[in-house]
């Protein structure tokens, strides 16, 4: 059986790229199919799945390491921002209350100054764009790490014939859609009934 692209190439040389694409796809697929047979034979069935799963987990672990670099970078910046603000606030407190408090009233007054300055400075930090952006990136990296962990868990779940997170989510979504449809119908019916009574 002759494929469409191989037919066209003889008539129209402009389709040369298409022809080579087809040629490459053909041999890639054929070699893959041919090679999988002896591999299946030697891997004795389930062990092949184990090998494939190990590969998937290894890939996830490599990506986790890549993400950890980014995560650490934002985490360092997060603590840097906190410690710089702390240092600045402490300086302000020292300027405002340079003497060591001598009695209970003075301790109370210094404590009040300390809390007010620290709360103001930290609120200013948390309200700033630089904090918001860095915190957003930090959380985002944390979520990427969680995603890789989820992927690893999914591989393990599937290896023991349990549904993956995506499959469970599909069920949840289906249930949600059905419940929503039913409750909307029920509500509509109630409203209609009430209308008819009135």
């Amino acid at each position, binding site marked *: 059986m002759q494929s469409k692209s191989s037919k066209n190439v003889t008539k129209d040389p402009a389709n040369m790229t298409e022809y080579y694409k087809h040629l490459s796809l053909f041999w890639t697929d054929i070699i893959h199919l041919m090679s999988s047979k002896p591999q299946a034979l030697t891997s004795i069935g389930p062990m092949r799945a184990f090998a494939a799963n190990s590969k998937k987990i290894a890939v996830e672990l490599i990506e986790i390491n890549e993400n950890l670099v980014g995560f650490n970078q934002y985490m360092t910046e997060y603590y840097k921002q906190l410690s710089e603000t702390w240092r600045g606030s402490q300086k302000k407190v020292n300027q405002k209350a340079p003497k*060591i408090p*001598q*009695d*209970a009233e003075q*301790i109370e007054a210094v*404590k009040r100054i*300390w*809390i007010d300055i*620290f*709360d103001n400075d*930290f*609120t200013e930090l*948390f*309200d*700033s*764009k630089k*904090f*918001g*952006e860095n*915190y*957003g990136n930090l*959380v*985002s990296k944390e*979520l*990427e790490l*969680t*995603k890789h962990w*989820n992927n690893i868990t999914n591989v393990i779940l599937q290896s023991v014939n349990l549904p993956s997170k995506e499959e469970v*989510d599909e069920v*949840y*979504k289906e*249930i*949600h*859609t059905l*419940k*929503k449809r039913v*409750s*909307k119908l029920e*509500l509509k019916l*109630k*409203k209609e009934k*009430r209308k008819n009574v009135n």
Partner: protein
Amino acid sequence: MLTESNIDPKIIEEILKFSKNVIDAPKLVSAPDEINLEVTPHEVVQEIDKTRLLHYKPLVETKYQTPLLISYALINRYHILDIHPQKSWVRNLLEQGFEVYMLDWGTPTSMDKYLDFDDYVNGYLDTSVEYIKNQLSIEQISLQGYCTGATIATAYTALHPENVKNYIATAPVIDGWKDTTVISNLAKHMDADKMVDTIGNMPPEFMYYCFSVLKPFEQGIEKYVKFFKNIDDKKYVDNFLRVEKWLGDTPPIPGELFKQWIKDIYQKNLLIQNKMYVGEELIDLKKIDMPMFTQVAVGDHLVSPECSMPLHYAVGSEDKTLKIYPTGHVGMIASSLSQKKVLPEMGRWLSERS
């Protein structure tokens, strides 16, 4: 440097007293877990999924025909509106002669991650309104929304104005771009899609983080020092533990609802621009044309007045009142100020229209 001879004896006295208070604390006060936050008697009249519609038992003869339904916030539970007999929002309204219902959103689980604004507005809230209408054979109710519950109530009122006789918005989250709080800064920089896709519901831990950045030293340290210092003051301790217990009970927020919340309100600011959709319906704030009462607090560090007040100017109502109180987000609903000023003013306004 302080030497032994010039240490103020009062300091030693205070340290010793404080240490004694810490040791005595477990003997004097209940553990938060032992405190019952359900203060005012009520019955659960309707349950749908995890939500419950509560009907409070009248404390005096009901004076007004139109009942009030309260749509509480999505953050923490409704108990703050009935936190203590002397500071209870609900009890005060009952004593004024109103019939009060409360919608408790419950505690969503992973299974509820697909619940969205449409489910809350056109599902749970609408079903509750219909229930009350049917039970009392009335055509309209009064609706009050608090905080994020007011955003849901605002959307509901705009979509179903025929059901709402009076609308009260208490610290509503409306104009996300004008919100000057730390929470809005975090929300604006958050990848809500990634969060929901990865972990499903918005986890309570994230909310605890948000709480921790609000006045971290006053709220995180000084508050507890004061608690132990005042351990003999029964009234103070009781109130403190109740509020603490309420603060620690933060249910997750359903993923889809949270996503729409962050994106449409804080990031794209669609609600105030009349561009937000709930389900397939566009919310037009001009459709809110019934009497409206807006309450905001100057010291609100969760929803700034700049975020709430635009609602007052955006609605179509001709009969509308805006009240600004010198207190904070919780102070407006659960304090002596709320009992002495906020609630009597709201009650007067509502009684004239109920």
